[in-house]
């Protein structure tokens, strides 16, 4: 079977799963729905492997195939096909997405067991995977936009999964609106591409672009900036990032899959895919790099002071994606994709472990109330530790190899990129500190009440079913786990998923050791072979130096965290008191939400109010009522002729006849 056939199967299976579970929600027993959903994605993963093997059988320079199912629109110069594009980059993304998704589906099988919306969950999750794969496999910009929009919808549906929760629905709407802003950017970019190059197909666009555009011409820069708007909105980079923290209202598997491993990486994939365009516009690429860097640092500071566990991890995600964006923007394409892969592993795992702990805490997410879970939940704490080590880039873990490869590349490019490298290392320090702040708060120490209950009785504590933010009671009829929460220790499927990811988080990096093994960069090389940046390989020596620096920084960060949170627990409070303004800035998330409220939301509301009170009432209604009044008036006038008097009708008749006769007499004489 050819690679494209495998690819079509990759797309088909999750779609079928979604439809089957969605339509059969009354007929299918719960467990079967879960199994079906997981198997659909697992099958998709298997087909992805098939595509990979088929692709490896090809000559390295011809490892790109396009296949089209249907000509959607072929008119007036437009040629939009329902076509996919299979090359190492898309197969790579397919494998990462389907692989991690399978594990998360397995996790959800156990985690969401007491949720009344089980079937809806799996149907939507399958649909999400389908949309993400569509985005990744799309062969032209139109299908990319379709996949992009579907992913945005799936994200919205899953964030507001517990739809009776006001906080959840508001968060869903916020995410969707910001996503739509990104969609607009993407669509405008597509229009411009069509106008300049006359095609939507990847092959044609990337072939024609270098011939049509000169470097840094304003059109190509505009196209790239618009693409960046889309990428930033989807990947939660500054200033389109405010939705990600609120998106934690969704169930933990959703946070794990969508907002850590897959959807938020779509922006990175976009930049890597359209690297031809970005290389023609170094200005736009630099903008992307700066935004990535800025996000990296700002999100790091925000994660440092967050007290909500999931939101802290969300900011960590934002920060790591900043690394990836910076990486692909400066030309370190395979390094960026490598970090994408390792990040998927350890971030998904971190969320899974967090989910387990939150379940043990009866749905309370405040880390100030957590402690001592190292003793209470052995398995969860070990996996959490593995994830944290990888995130902090502890020497030998996957995160270690991937993050530092990006920074080494930056150093290699020289000039201002060296400054980026330095700041990247500062960010790495922050990462290590905030990651282990979480670890040291939650795992060691005296067990809190819930943990104690777990140790003593082995049962999960029962909490009050009340939304901690708004105080309203939770509605367990439509979804929201009732009194029963599921922890990893109690569910085999959760343990299997977390275990696999823990192993991958630790050893996944060994496929790309500088100077020794480069599986990933070799595999991805044909995609970027015409890029003049990708050939800038740092020498093995400088890479090892970078790795050494990175390892040292990671250990330093862990040490600082240990100092602050284990040895001297009063230090953080003292530091906070001394740097109060800074702390306030970080805790209020750099006031981005307030800024957007003032700049965007309030004017929009004002325009809406004006439209309603003035425009609608006077102009629109006036026109309509005015027309009605005029017609009615005219009708009234005409009606006066119908008086009912036969003699006046006769008069009109004869008068008309006389008039006509006069006319004919005059004209004929």
């Amino acid at each position: 079977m050819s690679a494209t056939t495998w690819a079509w199967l990759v797309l088909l299976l999750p779609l079928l799963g979604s439809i089957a579970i969605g339509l059969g929600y009354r007929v299918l027993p719960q467990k079967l729905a879960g199994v079906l959903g997981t198997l659909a994605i697992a099958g998709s993963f298997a087909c992805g492997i098939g595509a990979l093997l088929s692709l490896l059988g090809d000559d390295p320079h011809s490892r790109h195939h396009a296949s089209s199912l249907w000509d959607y629109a072929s008119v007036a110069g437009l040629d939009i096909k329902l076509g996919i594009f299979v090359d190492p980059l898309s197969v790579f993304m397919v494998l990462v997405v389907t692989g991690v998704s399978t594990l998360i589906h397995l996790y959800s099988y156990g985690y969401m067991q007491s949720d009344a919306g089980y079937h809806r969950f799996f149907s939507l999750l399958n649909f999400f995977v389908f949309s993400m794969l569509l985005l990744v496999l799309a062969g032209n910009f139109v299908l990319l936009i379709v996949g992009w929009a579907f992913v945005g919808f799936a994200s919205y549906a899953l964030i507001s999964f517990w739809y009776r929760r006001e906080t959840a629905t508001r968060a869903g709407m916020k995410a969707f609106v910001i996503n739509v802003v990104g969609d607009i950017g993407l669509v405008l970019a597509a229009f411009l591409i069509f106008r300049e190059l006359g095609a939507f197909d990847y092959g044609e666009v990337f072939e024609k672009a270098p011939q049509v555009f000169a470097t840094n011409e304003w059109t190509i820069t505009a196209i790239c900036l618009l693409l960046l708007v889309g990428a930033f909105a989807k990947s939660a980079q500054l200033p389109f990032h405010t939705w990600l923290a609120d998106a934690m209202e969704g169930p933990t598997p959703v946070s794990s899959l969508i907002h850590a491993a897959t959807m938020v990486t779509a922006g990175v994939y976009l930049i890597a895919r359209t690297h031809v365009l970005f290389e023609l516009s170094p200005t736009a690429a630099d903008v992307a790099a700066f935004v990535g860097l800025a996000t990296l640092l700002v999100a790091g500071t925000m994660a440092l002071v967050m007290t909500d566990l999931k939101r802290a991890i969300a900011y960590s995600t934002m920060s790591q994606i900043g690394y990836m964006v910076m990486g692909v923007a400066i030309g370190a394409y395979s390094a960026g994709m490598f970090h994408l892969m390792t990040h998927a592993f350890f971030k998904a795992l971190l969320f899974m472990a967090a989910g387990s702990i939150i379940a043990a805490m009866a749905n309370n997410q405040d880390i100030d109330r957590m402690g001592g879970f190292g003793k209470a939940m052995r398995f969860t704490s070990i996996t959490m530790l593995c994830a944290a080590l990888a995130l902090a880039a502890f020497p030998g873990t996957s995160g270690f190899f991937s993050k530092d490869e990006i920074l080494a590349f930056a150093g290699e490019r020289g000039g201002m990129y060296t400054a980026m490298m330095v700041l990247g290392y500062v960010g790495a320090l922050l990462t290590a500190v905030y990651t282990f702040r979480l670890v040291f708060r939650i795992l060691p120490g005296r067990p809190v009440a819930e943990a104690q209950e777990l140790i003593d009785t082995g049962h999960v504590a029962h909490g009050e079913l009340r939304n901690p933010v708004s105080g309203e009671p939770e509605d367990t009829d439509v979804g929201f786990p009732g009194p029963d929460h599921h922890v990893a220790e109690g569910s085999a499927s959760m343990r299997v998923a977390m275990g696999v990811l823990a192993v991958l988080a630790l050893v996944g990096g060994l496929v790309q050791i500088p100077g020794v093994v480069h599986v990933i960069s070799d595999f991805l090389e044909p995609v970027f072979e015409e890029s003049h940046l990708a050939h800038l390989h740092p020498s093995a020596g400088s890479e090892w130096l970078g790795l050494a620096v990175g390892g040292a920084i990671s250990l330093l960060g862990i040490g600082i965290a240990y100092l602050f949170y284990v040895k001297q627990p009063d230090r953080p409070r003292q530091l906070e008191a001394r740097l109060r303004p800074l702390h306030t800035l970080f805790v209020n998330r750099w006031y981005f939400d307030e800024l957007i409220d003032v700049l965007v939301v309030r004017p929009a509301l004002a325009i809406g109010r004006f439209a309603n009170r003035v425009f609608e009432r006077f102009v629109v209604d006036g026109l309509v009522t005015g027309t009605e009044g005029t017609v009615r008036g005219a009708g009234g006038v005409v009606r006066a002729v119908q008086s009912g008097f036969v003699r006046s009708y006769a008069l009109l008749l004869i008068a008309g006849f006389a008039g006509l006769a006069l006319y004919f007499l005059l004209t004929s004489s």
Partner: protein
Amino acid sequence: MEEALFFVSALGALGGAVGVIAMRNPFYSVLSLVVHLFSLASLFLLLTAAFVAAAQVVVYAGAVMVLYIFVVAYVGGGGESAWEPIPGQRFLAPLLGIALFVELSVAVLASGLRALGEEGPDVKAGFGDPAAIGTLLLEKFLLPFEAASILLLLAAVGAIVLAARRREEAA
């Protein structure tokens, strides 16, 4: 001689017509119309339409007007009130009548019909005789003749239906 007869008959016709529209009592209007019809019959004679003149007197003045008189006797009918509900009607009506007359006259007289100003062809004797009319009716105009008879039948049936006493009324 002809002119004299013409003028007398014309006066009679006009007088009868004016009488019809001017008399208050409908009975007097009917009688005026009878006068008018007789005058018209003499005019027809002047035009050598003997049969038509006879039909006019016998059928029209004789049968139709008698019908009218019966109905007027049954219905009665006093005068009409002087007040005119439709504004402008009393003013416009004569005006329009005059306009109509003028236009029709002009239309015919200025139409350029060659024979209009002349005496007319010499007609053979027997022009307008019942024999001539009869021949035409039964040969050339048979279809209109038959259609007219059906029309008469329909009218008779229609009149009976319209004027019949309903069951409820009789009770």
